[in-house]
């Protein structure tokens, strides 16, 4: 059964690096992992997408180990404005299913 799992919540302080891990045991060879950020009463916003190893853009990095059964979103030096819910999405190509994780609520404290 395809499933995408992530922690429900995390706390951090301004200036720290935050790492959020998503588990996707049934990921297939050609499936991509995508992360989104959502603020209250808004649609999710695309952060980063990866397939394997490491991807970095101006806001985050995505680390994917060789077995691809998990992935880690890394937010460098978070600020108060990074307080939001972060979602992991995997498209399971072998079933055609798009499955979001339940979301990780990140609370950044001053």
């Amino acid at each position: 059964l395809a499933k995408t799992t992530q922690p429900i919540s995390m706390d951090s302080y301004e200036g720290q690096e935050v790492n959020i891990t998503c588990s996707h045991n049934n990921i297939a060879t050609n499936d991509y992992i995508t992360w989104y950020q959502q603020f209250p009463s808004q649609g999710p916003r695309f952060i980063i997408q990866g397939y394997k190893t490491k991807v970095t853009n101006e806001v985050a990095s995505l680390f994917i180990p060789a077995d691809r059964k998990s992935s880690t979103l890394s937010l460098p030096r978070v600020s108060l404005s990074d307080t939001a819910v972060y979602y992991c999405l995997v498209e399971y190509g072998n079933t055609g299913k798009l499955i979001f994780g339940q979301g990780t609520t990140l609370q950044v404290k001053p």
Partner: protein
Amino acid sequence: SQTIHQWPATLVQPVGSPLSLECTVEGTSNPNLYWYRQAAGRGLQLLFYSVGIGQISSEVPQNLSASRPQDRQFILSSKKLLLSDSGFYLCAWSVEGGGQPQHFGDGTRLSIL
């Protein structure tokens, strides 16, 4: 650049009334289109997706339906709303093909009384 529009932003409807939510995308052709529902404090549940005009795939059985009458128009409908249909409805688009990032609209907050 591409943009996605959803309306209305908020909607209050009585139980048993019909529903029509509209989503349009601009600046791209033949996008994949998606409807999601998000219950309060919960994650996103995929309801429908479409890879082309008239092509609709349903992910969960329910009293909602979707239609794609034009390439960049996606409509979510119901003939008779239930209390359990309350939630935050989100439309999204992606470039055609698999493994492409989705881009979301601002959502419609639907309350059923």
